[in-house]
């Protein structure tokens, strides 16, 4: 049965800090679109939304989520961006047996050593990012790599994944540099990358670090001197900020792009009407996962975490976000990923027309196989 | 004393002046008049409000009411920098030597407000100590040297009304003697001087008139020639 005849969804994300643009207030808009599209009610029960800024702080987020689940009877926590916040929240959800869907975090540890039976990791993680971009670039002849890695857990994970993929495909890492997070001036590192003579300069960082590195690379003529830039985590908002002129030719992996087909375009147009911007993969993931959740609640007639999660795991995901996506027992939603290249200014029609999709990376190839999982829910 | 043609000109007139520091009411209605070329002293015990009177003229106290006319102009609404530009030179009790400036920079700091001030050479001949130490940091001077510097720097500006607060403090007797001569010379040049002094022996022979301040009020006015007659009154006020 549905508790108190209400399905209550808590949206927790960075509303004002570094991750604001990739999820933030617009993610809430996506969530509300999903509820509206679903019809505003589930099996006659109300759907309510509460939301909060996570302040990028695990303890503020813990307080919020504890109150949500203990006092406000929140059934689902959505959003979830900073990995420290996602992990902290998932522990609380496990304690209280509620459900969480992580849409914004990159850490693959969320469904690996930190997996719980109470959360789902929906959009992407570092594993396919490395897999998609690195293998494609190596196959195209980019054999020797130089890595610029953000010196924190996310960067280290990405670096590890990239190294594995590059070496598996017959390439080699000729050098790497771990830069502090955040770094504004990358010229010194770009210079070292240039001096290394590597074919590819890989950016194992995110956000402002990545955009700064790309700007500097373009200023120092990295591509002119024959090197390729490979960014491992770029959101549409980052590329938009850089512009096609600076970012052109960069290859990247994404879980979704707004301009892939009729369905995505239709939804993105509606999203843009609401928010004024094109959606990132995180926005689309929030929309999709919320719909999937509500469908499962409707199907089971219950908002109990385990019941709903089971139902979601049993139902393949086929919507504008993913085709044949499925949720594994470790909580990982696996779906096809896409290798994209940033268009040249000549190719780009408008400021949001930024990617060419080069290749689809099949779900099974993209994500960490369960056989390698350290998740306590997986019997290895 | 030399009689000056401007003697009747009212350089300064304070009437009903009250002054406050925050909550505390320090001056309770001061009335006094100083004519051009006159040297008057403010005498009184510690804490009587003499320094405050000078600061009030400069608009450097918390709040003031009443009236202060300088050269016939009402200055209650004037900012301190306007008052200085009326030709008032102020030598504060705490000396106010700037540590980020050298002695020479300290000396040349106050802008010249009128012509007729002393030149740097004149000042250096008057205070050879300063000349010797002119490149050292202002606050590295000895106590007495700082006092000389504080006095010397307003002599350069050409101000024609000097407010001098305890200028002999901490000075060796020879220098005090010299300062006495300087004041006489300045007076002869027609400058108006208001002198706050503890050192009555220094002030007595120089002044035309004395005001005795007590509890923020003028309680007695004594001119130079009534000094001997009113000696006992004065002693009782000053607690000699």
């Amino acid at each position, binding site marked *: 049965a549905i508790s108190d005849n209400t399905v209550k969804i808590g949206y927790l994300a960075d509303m004002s800090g570094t991750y604001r643009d990739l999820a933030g207030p617009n993610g809430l808009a996506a969530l509300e679109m999903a509820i509206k599209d679903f019809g505003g009610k589930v099996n006659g029960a109300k759907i309510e939304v509460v939301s909060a800024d996570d302040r990028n702080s695990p303890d503020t987020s813990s307080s919020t989520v504890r109150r949500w689940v203990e006092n406000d009877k929140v059934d689902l926590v959505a959003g979830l961006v900073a990995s420290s916040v996602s992990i902290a929240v998932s522990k609380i959800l496990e304690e209280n047996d509620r459900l969480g869907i992580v849409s914004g975090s990159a850490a693959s540890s969320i469904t690996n050593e930190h997996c719980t039976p109470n959360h789902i990791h929906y959009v992407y993680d570092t594993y396919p990012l490395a897999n998609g971009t690195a293998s494609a670039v190596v196959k195209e002849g980019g054999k020797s790599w130089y890595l610029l890695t953000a010196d924190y857990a996310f960067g280290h994970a990405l670096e590890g994944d990239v190294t594995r993929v590059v070496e598996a495909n017959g390439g080699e890492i000729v050098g790497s540099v771990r830069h502090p997070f955040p770094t504004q001036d990358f010229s010194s590192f770009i210079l070292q990358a240039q001096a290394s003579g590597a074919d590819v300069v890989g950016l194992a960082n995110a956000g402002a670090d990545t955009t700064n590195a790309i700007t500097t690379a373009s200023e120092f003529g990295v591509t002119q001197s024959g090197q390729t830039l490979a960014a491992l985590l770029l959101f549409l908002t980052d590329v938009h900020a850089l512009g096609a002129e600076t970012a052109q030719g960069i290859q990247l992996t994404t879980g979704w792009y707004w301009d892939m087909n009729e369905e995505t375009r239709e939804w993105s147009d509606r999203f843009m009407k609401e928010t004024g911007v094109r959606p990132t993969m995180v926005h689309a993931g929030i929309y999709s996962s919320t719909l999937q959740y509500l469908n499962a609640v409707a199907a089971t007639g219950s908002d109990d975490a385990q019941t709903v999660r089971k139902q979601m795991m049993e139902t393949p995901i086929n919507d504008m976000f993913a085709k044949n996506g499925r949720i594994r027992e470790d909580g990982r939603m696996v779906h096809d990923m896409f290798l994209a290249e940033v268009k040249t200014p000549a190719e780009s029609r408008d400021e949001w027309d930024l990617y060419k999709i080069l290749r689809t990376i099949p779900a099974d190839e993209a994500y960490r196989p369960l056989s390698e999982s350290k998740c306590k829910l997986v019997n290895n | 004393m030399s009689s000056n043609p401007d003697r009747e000109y009212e350089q300064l007139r304070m009437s009903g002046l009250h002054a406050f520091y925050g909550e*505390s009411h320090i001056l309770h209605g001061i009335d006094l008049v100083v004519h051009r070329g006159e040297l008057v002293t403010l005498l*009184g*015990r*510690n*804490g009587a409000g003499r320094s405050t009177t000078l600061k009030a003229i400069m608009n450097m106290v918390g709040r003031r009411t009443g009236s202060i006319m300088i050269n016939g102009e009402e200055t209650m609404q004037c900012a301190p920098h306007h008052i200085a530009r009326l030709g008032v030179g102020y030598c504060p*009790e705490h000396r106010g030597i700037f540590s980020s400036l050298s002695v020479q920079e300290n000396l040349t700091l106050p802008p010249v407000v009128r012509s007729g001030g002393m030149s740097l050479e004149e000042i250096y001949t008057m205070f050879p*100590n300063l000349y010797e*130490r002119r490149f*050292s940091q202002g606050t*590295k*001077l*000895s*106590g*007495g*040297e700082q*006092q*000389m510097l504080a006095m010397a720097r307003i002599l350069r500006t050409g101000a024609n009304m000097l407010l001098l607060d*305890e200028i002999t*403090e*901490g*000075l*060796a*007797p*020879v*220098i*005090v*003697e*010299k*300062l*006495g*001569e300087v004041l*006489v010379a300045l007076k002869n040049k027609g400058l108006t001087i208001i002198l706050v002094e*503890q*050192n*009555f*022996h*220094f002030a*007595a*022979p*120089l002044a035309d008139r004395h005001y005795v301040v007590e509890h923020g009020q003028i309680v007695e006015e004594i001119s*130079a020639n009534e*000094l*001997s007659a009113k*000696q006992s009154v004065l002693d009782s006020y*000053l*607690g*000699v």
Partner: protein
Amino acid sequence: MSEQYVLETRNLVKEFKGFVAVNDVNLQIRQGDIHALIGPNGAGKTTVFNLLTKFLIPTRGQILYRGEDITPLKSAAIARKGIVRSFQISAVFPHMTALENIRVALQTAEGSSYSFWKSGHSLHKLNERCMELLESVGLAEFANTTTVELAYGRKRALELATTLAMEPQLLLLDEPTQGMGSEDVDRVVALVRKAAQGRTVLMVEHNLSVVSKLCDRITVLAQGAVLTEGDYQTVSADPRVREVYMGSDGSGERGAQAPSQENVEAAQ
């Protein structure tokens, strides 16, 4: 007392970037004396004080206290030996009451100054002594007044009382009467005289009447070096002292020569 001198300096020198502020000074201060250090402005008197109390490090030379070489000691250690100074520019704890100011000084001897676990009431036993000291400088009625609110002269008096609270063996006073009205000056003179019983005092003073009344022995500094030494009579008779320091009016009174002699007499 085996040592004749409480304090001795041997060839004390202080240079500031090539400028010699104190030049080869040999001071000898006898037990029980009130010893004055006088000299023109910039002669190096305050600097000598700073050297004796280690607020400045001597460039060369030695400082002996009761025969013991104290040159390497730090300020606080010197104070604990019983050499205590007052400052030329007034030094009080502005946001404490007068009584608390003195109590801080008394706590040094108390030995409880690190006791952060003890109640504040444990300090009340010092109040009586505080009141005595305050009374001796005429500040008893201001015991409970916050020090900022005291007039300048009273702050000086308070500072002196605080210094006395340390029960110093050797008291260093830098211009104790500066900025005081004649009334206060007399009080300070009396106070110093009282304080000097059983102690030794070294003072810098420009007020010659104070010096002449109080001091047993006088050292005249000029340009960093000792010019002469002796009792007041000897020193004031020395023409060199008259020239560099006392000026033409060597009468012992502080002040300039009067342009009109009558006025001065009238004033006295």
